[in-house]
């Protein structure tokens, strides 16, 4: 009897409390794990200095974040999607389908992608062509396309050290991989002339050639890391001969364990990326659901604070952590203040 009463009353309590669930007063965001540290730094400072609660920042990946943003409008959907790659037409279509019509695209700055190895190892000075020749499934040898025969970095480029090729690169679910494929492998493919060879072998089909360029070898020299940079770091600590791909900010926090390689003669740093000298960088974004701007308290203030000079400027805490400040930040600030939704994707 008492048990029955307990059951009924506890169910009643839960049902009643569901009724009193008040309107949401905290900002919720989700998305890229690359943007996550920057978002948490801003969220923390926002919670400290404003009378609004600290926003909740969830990770889970750029694509997952954008999908969550496009789930619909309402308090049980997120307000902001953090993304390390630009929104896709498929996301915009999904948004439109679910009634999310106005999305604001906010570019917060740039992020560098660096190549680093164990601190005790030799120095490396790479070019994109070296990476292509080291990791591609097929390379050009004596004018012929053959399965990649290179065993050590010295085979790839006589100036590099005689260390076996072993690279830990981000897995395909990461936004970083897209940039790596495009700015390193594809660039290296063109640079080394393999692109033409691939095109010639396929009757001039350039799409097919690009696809072949980005097909990496599967004999164990190139290892996809699906986890985060901490996993890459621990794999490198265990295997001193390996070279890993990291975000600039991650490297800057672990300079006592990692040695960074130059790319095309440029050492990655906030300055060289801002100047456009270092070739492997990408913009970071977040996407805001405009329909929530007047509903969720503090949302407008939060995004204005995020792109303010105080936070995202060249002397702000985000730059100190490794974000390359956007030279066009003033334009972004104006856009955020005017709540301008993004137009259709240009390409």
């Amino acid at each position, binding site marked *: 009897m008492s048990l029955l009463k307990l059951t009924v009353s506890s169910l009643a309590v839960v049902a009643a409390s*569901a009724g009193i*669930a008040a309107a949401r007063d*905290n900002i919720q965001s989700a998305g890229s794990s690359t943007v996550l540290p920057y978002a948490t730094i801003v*969220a923390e400072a926002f919670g*400290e200095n404003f009378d609004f609660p600290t926003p909740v920042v*969830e990770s889970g990946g750029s694509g997952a974040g954008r999908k969550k943003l496009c789930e619909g409008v309402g308090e049980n959907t997120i307000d902001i999607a953090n993304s390390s790659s630009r929104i896709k037409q498929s996301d915009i279509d999904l948004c439109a389908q679910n009634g999310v019509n106005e999305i604001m695209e906010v570019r917060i700055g740039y992020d560098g992608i660096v190549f680093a190895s164990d601190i005790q190892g030799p120095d490396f000075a790479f070019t994109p062509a070296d990476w292509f020749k080291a990791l591609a499934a097929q390379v050009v040898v004596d004018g012929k396309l053959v399965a990649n025969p290179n065993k050590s970095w010295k085979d790839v480029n006589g100036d590099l050290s005689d260390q076996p090729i072993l690279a830990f690169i981000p897995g395909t679910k990461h936004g970083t991989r897209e940039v790596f494929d495009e700015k390193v492998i594809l660039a290296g493919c063109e640079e080394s002339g393999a692109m033409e060879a691939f095109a010639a072998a396929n009757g001039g089909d350039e799409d097919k050639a690009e696809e072949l360029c980005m097909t990496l070898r599967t004999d164990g020299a190139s290892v996809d890391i699906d986890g985060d940079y901490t996993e890459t770091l621990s794999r490198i600590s265990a295997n001193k001969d390996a070279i890993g791909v990291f975000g600039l900010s991650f490297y800057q926090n672990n300079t006592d364990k990692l040695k960074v390689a130059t790319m095309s003669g440029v050492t990655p740093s906030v300055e060289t990326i801002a100047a456009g000298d270092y070739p492997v960088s990408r913009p970071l974004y977040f996407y805001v659901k405009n329909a929530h701007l007047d509903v969720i308290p503090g949302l407008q203030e939060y995004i204005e604070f995020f792109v303010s000079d105080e936070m995202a400027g060249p002397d702000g805490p985000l730059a100190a952590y490794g974000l390359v400040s956007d030279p066009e930040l003033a334009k972004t600030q104006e856009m955020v203040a005017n709540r301008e939704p993004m137009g259709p994707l240009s390409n």
Partner: protein
Amino acid sequence: MTDATAPESQAPRAGTLFAPDNRPRRRNAAERRFRAYGLTAVGLSILALVVLLSSVIGNGAGAFRQTFVEIPLTLDARIVDPKGNRNIDEMKKVTTIGYGRQLEASMVAAVAAAGLKTEGISDKDIAGLLSKEAAATLRNRVLANPALVGETITFRALANGRVDGFFKGRVTMESAELDSNVTPEQLGLAQRMREAGLITLAFNPDFLLGSDASEVRPEAAGLGVAILGSAYMMIIVLVLALPIGVAASIYLEEFAPKNRWTDLIEVNIANLAAVPSIVFGILGLAIFINMMGLPQSAPIVGGLILTLMTLPTIIIATRVSLAAVPPSIRDAALGVGASRMQAVFHHVLPLALPGILTGTIIGMARALGETAPLLLIGMVAFVREYPAAPPEGFFDPASALPVQVYNFTQRADPAFVERASGAIIVLLAFLICMNAAAIILRRRFERRW
């Protein structure tokens, strides 16, 4: 007698009992081998446990102690209250960046007052020995008590994660040489400040009570929100799963007719107990968030999902304990005129209770360590605000202990390794307490027939 009648000439068939022959030798050897295998297996598991615990405790014990800087600090009205009218709303306009300037000035003054050498160290680097959290600590203190402006107070704040690492042996002069976040000169000054008594290493209650912190201040990260979130979810699981589970099993065990339908239900409950937890997460996302419109990242949703996950465990444990109560108890109760319900609630259930509670606690311990379903409902997140008191707090965003471990391991700063291990220690302590409670209940109250 038969011995006596046996013919003398008939020799024993093969060997004697006193001299072992091949067959018993082989059997004994097999038994010895089996025991050796068993011992090896036990040894290996103990070794694995020792390695795991020693690495976790070795890495994580440091998280409970933290380096603090304690300096005298005169609150400069020009910085913290530029309008000079002690109006709290005006004072709120001064951000933590402004308070950072106040801290820098006070740190430099304190180091100079103690007569410590600071050659080659900029003022910014001296202030850099403090955690970035310090400015927020000071701001909150001033806003809570504006009368402090102009006064000299003793200010105690966390030291920077690298300085903390230096005193715990994680950061060395050699690594600082290569580290872009700290210089050996700064560490030298920290060493002198410690000798002068300005820096101390002490127990840090904020690791257990404080909230999470961003990547730039690992020293300030705490487990408070995660512990609250986990506690809220456990309350929800207990309040929902125990009564529902017990009611379901009493009905199935004592009242339900035995037919095809109850068999089907039984099979399904057994199957449900083996369903991977992530599946419950997907279910929860679809039903509780998308259909019922409950908020994201909230303990109520996590609790409901974990309830679904724990229910089969509780039902199975309860049914086993009910079945273990001898039929004579029921017969005796029915015999003196009790109704079936009275027989069950007055006699059978009290005797089965220790088993039910043990099953419940073990089910809850499993739920406490669950991360996968929480991933889908937005609880794997950076949450700094404490949820309110229940029942409203059940709907506020919160984190959970295993989630916090996962979050800490993903961060770039090496100081978070210590935090993650510390969080594991706390989680293990909770699990050990729950399992100990289960064992005690069983030992104390269980009856055998």
